[in-house]
Structure formats: structure tokens, C-alpha cells
């Protein structure tokens, strides 16, 4: 490695490098330890955790698309208790930076996950997945309604002093409005984007490819959309730290997100095709900085010339 300073910070959270594993694409951080050790990353965002284990959606759950894929996993997870008992000790021993991704069907679900995690060392922050229907308000997604979102963020904010990120949905009708609502609710940073709602059809069977009909699109197909959204939110809220994701496959993609205004990034679907993708991406980022005389990765953040 060259002398490039890869460190960055998302608000008060200092990271050894800007590449984190995205929720739902890296298990609980320990599934690929031989290929991609979690402690070598800027951090790992866990699979979304709920108060109790969930079995998730029926099969088929995934479909391939041009330059991407759809998933309807249905938020299958082992539950917060099993995570704290079975996964967290090893993550802690390895010195990984751990962001717990939280979801629920009611504000109480989110709080229960956070309260259980507050009892543990070695959790560095929370990321709220707000692309879930709120059962008590007729199934409206938290992330689609600024009022719901602000209230949810506020109650989570009151439950923890740790860094609190809100992961924005690209499907929300008013991106800037929801971003502002999350910040007004007390979010330290915003992560964007979650998957884009889509569907796939098998023409021979004349049926949807997914059991749930709809799924979330991820992979390089969504990168331009994600980049535009990071740029827009950065322009609207320049003081708010952003974590960019959506379709990142290379070190140059990371540079693109940093220039658009993200302080760090997450890599998801790329890991499925190349389990060492995040390490390769870090190497490419280092190489880019070296070649362009960029001494510190943080100097790239928001440095887009327009």
C-alpha cells in the first residue's frame, strides 16, 4: 500500500476506510471471514434485525436482471438476541466496526432491538431500515411519510447516544422531505439508497419470477439513481454526513459517491459475484488516490466540480 490516508468519518464515527458491507449482503459479518475479514473493512452493517427471529418470504426470493437482481427475502433474520449472543462476541474480538441494521413493523419493534443492543459493547451505531410497512398506520412505509419518519427517528434517538443513521428509501415520493425529517428527528447521518421496487416476469410460465411478485432492485443497474440521490441530498443538506450505496462494484464507483457528497459507502450485491469485492475495491481506491495525488480520501468528499 502507498501512503494514502484512507480514513474517513461519518459524523463523530471515525472509520479506518470508507468501505462498509451493506445490510443483507454480508450476513452478520462472519460468513466470509476467510475471504473478506470484517475487521479489514470500514465496518459491517448487519442483516436487518428484529426483536424476534423471522423466517422471511417464500421461494423464489431472487431473480436475475440486466446488471442487477431483484430480492424479496422478507427480512429473514435470527433476531437481536441470537445476534448479541452468537455473533457479536466474535465481531468484537476481531475488532470490527459494527453497525446494527434495525427494522420493525411498529416503533416499539425498533426500540426493542436498540434497547437490547444498548446492553452490549462493540456496537458502533444503528442504521434504521425504514422501508418497512408500519402495521399500526395501515401499512404505510415509515420512510414514505415524513411525519412518521421523524417520530420514529426521534424515539430511537432518545434510546441511544450511539451514532444513529437512517437509511432512505428511493421509493419515497419526496426524497428531500424525508431526508430532512430524519435529520429533524435526530439522525446523525443518512444512508442511501435502499433497493428500488421492481418486478420480473417469466414469459413462458406467465408468472412473476418472485413469490412476492415485487422485489427490490440492486446492483450496477441502480448506481446512477443512487448517485443522483446522494448528490441531491448533499446539495439540500450539505452539513449532514451521508453514506452512499447502490451498485458499487469498483474503486472508481466509490470515488464517484464520495465526490457526490458521501463520507463513506456501502457495498452490497457486488459481494455475491465476488466475495472479495470489497477488498479489491479498497485496493482500487488506494490506487486512484495514488495516481491522482490525493493524500487523504476525505478530501474527495463533496469535491465534485459543477
Amino acid at each position: 500500500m502507498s501512503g494514502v490516508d484512507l480514513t474517513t468519518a461519518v459524523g463523530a464515527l471515525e472509520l479506518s476506510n470508507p468501505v462498509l458491507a451493506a445490510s443483507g449482503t454480508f450476513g452478520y459479518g462472519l460468513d466470509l471471514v476467510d475471504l473478506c475479514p470484517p475487521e479489514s473493512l470500514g465496518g459491517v452493517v448487519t442483516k436487518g434485525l428484529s426483536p424476534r427471529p423471522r423466517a422471511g418470504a417464500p421461494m423464489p426470493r431472487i431473480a436475475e436482471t440486466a446488471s442487477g437482481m431483484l430480492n424479496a427475502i422478507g427480512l429473514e433474520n435470527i433476531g437481536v438476541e441470537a445476534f448479541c449472543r452468537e455473533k457479536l462476541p466474535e465481531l468484537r474480538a476481531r475488532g470490527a466496526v459494527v453497525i446494527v441494521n434495525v427494522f420493525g413493523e411498529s416503533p416499539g419493534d425498533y426500540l426493542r432491538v436498540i434497547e437490547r443492543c444498548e446492553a452490549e459493547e462493540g456496537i458502533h451505531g444503528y442504521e434504521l431500515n425504514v422501508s418497512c410497512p408500519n402495521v399500526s398506520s395501515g401499512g404505510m412505509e415509515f420512510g414514505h411519510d415524513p411525519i412518521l419518519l421523524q417520530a420514529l427517528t426521534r424515539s430511537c434517538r432518545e434510546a441511544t447516544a450511539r451514532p444513529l443513521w437512517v437509511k432512505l428509501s428511493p421509493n419515497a415520493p419526496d426524497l428531500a422531505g424525508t431526508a430532512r425529517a430524519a435529520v429533524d428527528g435526530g439522525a446523525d447521518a443518512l444512508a442511501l439508497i435502499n433497493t428500488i421496487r421492481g418486478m420480473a416476469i417469466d414469459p413462458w410460465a406467465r408468472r412473476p419470477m418472485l413469490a412476492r411478485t415485487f422485489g427490490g432492485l440492486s446492483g450496477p443497474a441502480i448506481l446512477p439513481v443512487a448517485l443522483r440521490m446522494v448528490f441531491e441530498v448533499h446539495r439540500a443538506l450539505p452539513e449532514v454526513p451521508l453514506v452512499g450505496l447502490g451498485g458499487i462494484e469498483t474503486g472508481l464507483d466509490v470515488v464517484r459517491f464520495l465526490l457526490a457528497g458521501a463520507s463513506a459507502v456501502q457495498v452490497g450485491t457486488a459481494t455475491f459475484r465476488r466475495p472479495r469485492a470489497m477488498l479489491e475495491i479498497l485496493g482500487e481506491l488506494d490506487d486512484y488516490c495514488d495516481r491522482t495525488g490525493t493524500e487523504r480520501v476525505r478530501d474527495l468528499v463533496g469535491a465534485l466540480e459543477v
Partner: protein
Amino acid sequence: MPRPVPGQFVMVESAGGGLPFWRRAFSVAGFGAGEESCWLDLMIREVGPGTAFWRGVPEGTGTRVLGPLGNGFPLEEPPRSVALVAGGIGLPPLLYAARELAGAGTRCDLFVGAATAEELIDPEGCARVAADTGGVLVPCTDDGTAGEAGLVTGAVERRLRDGAAWSELWACGPNPMLRAVAELGRAYGLPALLAMEERMACGLGVCLGCVVPTPDGGHLRVCTEGPVLRGDAVDWEAL
């Protein structure tokens, strides 16, 4: 690459990382290692772009292969005798198993099912592999153009009814066939070990796309807890 256990698979990149988007899963059909290199035998049936890619690729074309992945058949404690039941392109892992078992004293009777005589894969080679274990090849075709007419599981059942004394049933093929083997195992009190196939994005256990339902309402990942699963570990009604 460590020596693959029969039933294990590899994830293979096609078209140099462009389309199709995912890698494709193929069972290991054979393996050999030299001093500095190793080779893998794969048998590929063309069904779409990721398999068609391999038709006519020039020799020496490079690709990325990840593996061996998954659990494989339990070869450390080989059964005394086993019926290997292959449907269509389910043959490769069973052929590899029979080759590996040849020295272990396990008799392998190989049942191979296909739609037509033309679709039977290398019957002479299969017969030889079975014979090397002291077993036989039983080809079956849906249309009766070769071997026994009808479903391959029918051929297995007829022999079980006549008192065939295998200690286990191992199978790989389409899900309805695997389910029929699981039911034979239950009816005759034999462990049924089934190499399953599901759509896979990662092959590594992190996408949760390849799961099959279990009787307790949970799931198993075919790529990591499998692909070889016991017949009674799967909820066939819910699959």
C-alpha cells in the same frame, strides 16, 4: 483448490463478468491435482445464456471459479451399498461419488433417468463406473427408447419392493424426483440424501436466496447447509 467432496459445487463466472449477472452453480463431476495445478470436470446442460456461454468457447478461455462450496455426500463413513438416483443433469455429482467410492468397498447401483435415449448421458461410461464398484447401471427413459420405460424412481421402487438391500439412497435431479426419493426412503426406512438445486445469487450463504423450507417452519440454505440434505429435513409440501 482443496479436493472437492462429491456433491459439492463451484460458482463459475461466464461471459467474463458481464452478462449474465450472477455466477452459475455447477456440481463437481471430477477432480485431479498435479504438483502446481488442478483440474475440474464439469458437465453442463445448456438451458439459457449462462450455460450456452460454454458451447464452443475456445480452449484456454479463462474464467473465475469459486469453490468447492457446500457440504457434499458423507464419504468419510461410506455406506455398504447405495442406490445413486440421477435425473437429467443431476448425474455429475453421483458419477463423481461413484468414482470416489470405487476404492472404498461401497457397491453403487446407478439409476439414470432421461426423457429419451438421446438425452442419456454417456451410458457406456456410466456402466463402467458402476461396474467398478460392483454395481450396475439402470438407464430409464420417459418414452421407453432406452432402458426401462418410465420414471427412474419407479425403477428404484420396483427393486426395493423385490427386497433390494441398499443401506442408503443418494439422489440429484429435479425437485419432484427428489421428493419421490425422499418418500421411498421413508417408506423403506433408508436414509435419503438429496443434492438439491435452487436459484443462487452468491453460493456463499449471504444472500438467503436459495433456501428450502424445513418441517419446523424454518429454512435451510441449499448453498451452505446443503446442497446435500436429508429427505426428512425438507418440507416438501411447502417447497
